[in-house]
């Protein structure tokens, strides 16, 4: 199958308008005849389900948590970008578009990113109308702050809880539709398979996490908004239930997976404290607005930070990147922290940390101003580490945070399976090889509020959809597959727990497919993953029963998928013969150790087609064409 991104013609600024005009509309009276399944209730899924229902479609919405309000989006801290130019500092749709393409190290599709920048402004309007309490200045107008990778102030925020407030906005819109009977909500459900009939996505099979029953749901289209797969590394800033199951199983049903090796390691997280740790905590990137990153100039300097005089400190980001300083993009900041620690200059008990110091900002602005901006983050830091960042610098270290890779989608957000749409972090689009801060919230809401509601109509009107029932052979086959897997997992009764396997997998991925990669390590990792997967299916110990609320069994299914998917990440990392953004292969770097792209040979999206567990997947390439942005070596100096 040839990949067709279906990018509309015409100048970039007119593509989306023209496309919306050309898309066929669904007759309002017909909308309620269409059933749409939306899996996931984060910013992408919550906004999509609510908006589709408002248009008149009948929606079934699914999530793993006990209520849609707890999707992982709730944890986003720092903010959401928009090209409003309220700060009058020269921002524009064009600049947001440009920054996002450049920040992504020129591996994103121009047309999608431009549309994202256009829509960004509508998102802020919509959220304010819903009652999202964004930060305001004394005149009562909306306030902005700056974020990494940008020199303008375009980030809207709600204290350090932007994701929470945006998600509660989408959740309230969703609840209004539930109350009106337009959305049927299925919480504590996990989608375990996609059902395809006549080549089109026509439903899902989900596990009822309380009773263990398999439930079959038919629809005219399926929308996956199931988030990212950062938890393949075990330790990450993602919530515990984040997984790859829904997208991986869709991949196994024929949806191509885009750029799986593009993962983002966030520079400002609380360092790992020991080997019983269950997850890592992000300290919002917004802290880099006022915090200064440094390490001691001397290797192995164990003095307390207050004892290290100014001229014996190395503010290495300010030194190396004078124009962006502490606000360089995430991949650059992370790799630099790792380099400092690898050179023996790391601080703290483990030596795997650098300082993020607010002393100068507090001196300049006063503690109350800093507290207003970051109070809850400082408090969270203190709760976890028992240290007071107003008095002593924070210690931070990079951690896995976001996955740019995801199911491949065209301009309409449809995957390579007809009728299967993918939104939010679950798709590969928009962020290229590195995502800029405050742009995931923007993308999730753009996809759900303003893109899918149009594009899905084009699909539904133009497609012949025959009635399908839940007793169709395809549902039968999916359910059998799921039951067989559950039975197998419970019957092994081996010696190692699910978490034990997950932790081992995470370490392999962190060591060999993390911030810095090389072919030898990747090949080694591939073999280790295959061995671990083999052992998992012989030696995993899953307690309890299938027909019950069984959290170990839930995790076992997710880890089984991670064990397959991790190998795809490695294959993808080996295949890409360049470094770009979050993918840094040591063989491809500049003299100054920056990522070295190969635009002539590697300006493409990799889209992988599944061939079977032990068979090599087939690579399809979507060439990326840059007509509006000039390709250049990224420079933040």
């Amino acid at each position: 199958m040839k990949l067709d991104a279906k990018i509309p013609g015409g100048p970039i600024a007119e593509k989306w308008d023209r496309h919306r005009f050309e898309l066929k509309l669904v007759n309002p009276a017909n909308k309620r005849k269409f059933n749409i399944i939306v899996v996931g209730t984060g910013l992408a899924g919550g906004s999509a389900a609510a908006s589709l229902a408002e248009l008149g479609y009948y929606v079934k919405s699914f999530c793993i948590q006990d209520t849609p309000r707890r999707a992982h989006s709730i944890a986003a801290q720092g903010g959401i970008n928009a090209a409003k130019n309220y700060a009058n500092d020269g921002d524009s749709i064009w600049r947001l578009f440009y920054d996002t393409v450049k920040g992504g190290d020129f591996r994103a599709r121009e047309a999608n990113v431009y549309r994202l920048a256009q829509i960004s402004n509508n998102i802020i309007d919509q959220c304010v109308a819903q009652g999202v309490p964004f930060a305001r200045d004394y005149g009562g107008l909306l306030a902005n702050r700056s974020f990494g990778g940008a020199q303008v102030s375009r980030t809207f925020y709600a204290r350090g809880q932007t994701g929470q407030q945006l998600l509660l906005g989408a959740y309230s819109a969703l609840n209004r539709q539930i109350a009106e009977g337009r959305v049927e909500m299925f919480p504590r459900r996990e989608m375990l398979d996609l059902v395809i009939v006549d080549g089109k996505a026509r439903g899902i099979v989900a596990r009822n996490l309380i009773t263990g029953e398999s439930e079959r749901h038919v629809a005219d289209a399926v929308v996956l908004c199931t988030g990212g797969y950062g938890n393949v590394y075990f330790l990450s800033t993602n919530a515990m239930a984040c997984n790859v199951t829904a997208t991986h199983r869709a991949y196994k049903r024929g949806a191509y997976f885009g750029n799986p090796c593009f993962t983002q390691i966030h520079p400002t997280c609380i360092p790992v404290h020991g080997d019983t740790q269950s997850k890592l905590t992000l300290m919002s990137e917004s802290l880099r607005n006022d915090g200064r990153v440094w390490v001691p100039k001397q290797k192995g300097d164990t003095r307390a930070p207050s004892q290290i005089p100014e001229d014996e400190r190395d503010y290495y980001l300010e030194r190396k990147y004078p124009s962006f300083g502490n606000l360089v993009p995430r991949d650059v900041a992370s790799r630099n922290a790792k380099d400092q620690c690898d050179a023996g200059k790391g601080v703290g008990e483990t030596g795997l940390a650098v300082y993020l110091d607010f002393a100068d900002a507090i001196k300049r602005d006063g503690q109350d101003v800093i507290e207003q901006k970051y109070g809850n983050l400082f408090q969270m830091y203190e709760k976890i580490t028992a240290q007071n960042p107003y008095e002593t610098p924070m210690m931070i270290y990079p951690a896995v945070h976001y996955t740019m890779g995801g199911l491949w989608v065209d301009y309409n957000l449809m995957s390579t399976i007809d009728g299967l749409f993918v939104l939010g972090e679950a798709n590969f689009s928009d962020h290229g090889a590195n995502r800029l801060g405050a742009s995931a919230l923007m993308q999730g809401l753009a996809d759900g509020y303003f893109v899918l509601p149009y594009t899905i109509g084009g699909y539904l009107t133009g497609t012949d959809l025959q009635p399908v029932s839940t007793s169709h052979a395809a549902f039968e086959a999916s359910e059998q597959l799921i039951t067989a897997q559950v039975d197998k997992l419970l019957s092994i009764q081996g010696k190692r727990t699910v978490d034990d396997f997950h932790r081992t997998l995470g370490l392999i991925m962190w060591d060999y497919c993390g911030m810095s990669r090389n072919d030898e390590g990747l090949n080694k990792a591939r073999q280790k993953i295959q061995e671990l997967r083999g052992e998992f299916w012989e030696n995993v110990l899953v307690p309890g029963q299938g027909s019950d609320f069984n959290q170990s069994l839930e995790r076992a299914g997710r880890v089984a998928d991670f064990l397959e998917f991790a190998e795809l990440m490695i294959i993808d990392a080996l295949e890409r013969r360049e470094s770009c953004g979050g993918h840094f292969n040591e063989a491809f770097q500049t003299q100054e150790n920056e990522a070295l792209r190969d635009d002539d040979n590697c300006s493409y999206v990799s889209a992988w087609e599944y061939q079977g567990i032990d068979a090599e997947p087939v690579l399809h390439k979507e060439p990326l064409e840059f007509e509006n942005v000039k390709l250049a070596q990224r420079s933040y100096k």
Partner: protein
Amino acid sequence: MTKNINLTLKVWRQKNSSAAGNFERLEAKDISTDMSFLEMLDIINEKLTLEGKEPIAFDHDCREGICGQCGSVINGRPHGPEKGTTLCQLHMRHFADGDELVIEPFRARAFKVVKDLAVDRSPLDQLIQAGGYISANTGAAPDANALPISKETAEMAFDAAACIGCGACIAACPNASAMLFIGAKVSHLNLLPQGKSEADKRTLGMVRKMDTLGFGNCTNERECEAECPKEISITNIARLNRGFIKASLFSSEK
């Protein structure tokens, strides 16, 4: 300073919502004081699993104090002893070697136990469905700066909007009332100009729904405020009551 402590746990075990439950005594050995409370439960669960027993079911997700999915009652206190802290953010350094901890699910008539420490809090969603939103269809919004909102109002609305929907206020209340939860949502939306046109409908709808879902009435015990991990203020209940009286008397929304 990191050190290791030993604790005795008495944990509520209940197979499902219709089964009877009981306390099980478990030893938590060699627990690092840097661990979070949930990481301590993870360790116990790994051990139980390897011994061929069923691990303790408990809800959690973000482990950052924001999703509202965690929560149990520790020695009689929802989310444990630390003020303004969710269970996932509670660290073991707040306990001493030899402590005995009684761990129970959130208990309230409206919340059924799902299993062990996990409960069904879906009635909180039903409360939101009764009016906890502003009716603003996608695409119909004016420019975000068309309507200035004073910083003070925005901040007050925010303080109320910080509720994470954990249900600790209900578990803490002797009447299992949801007034703090509703008060927070009604304050958040009714304080903002965007929320004013539906204010009476929202207030009446949510309070009446609460009565039908098996939550109790507020008799001013103030336990909710004391145990709320987000320190949502009880003034939100006072504001809700004022709004309710006004709406019941004067509103055409009956």
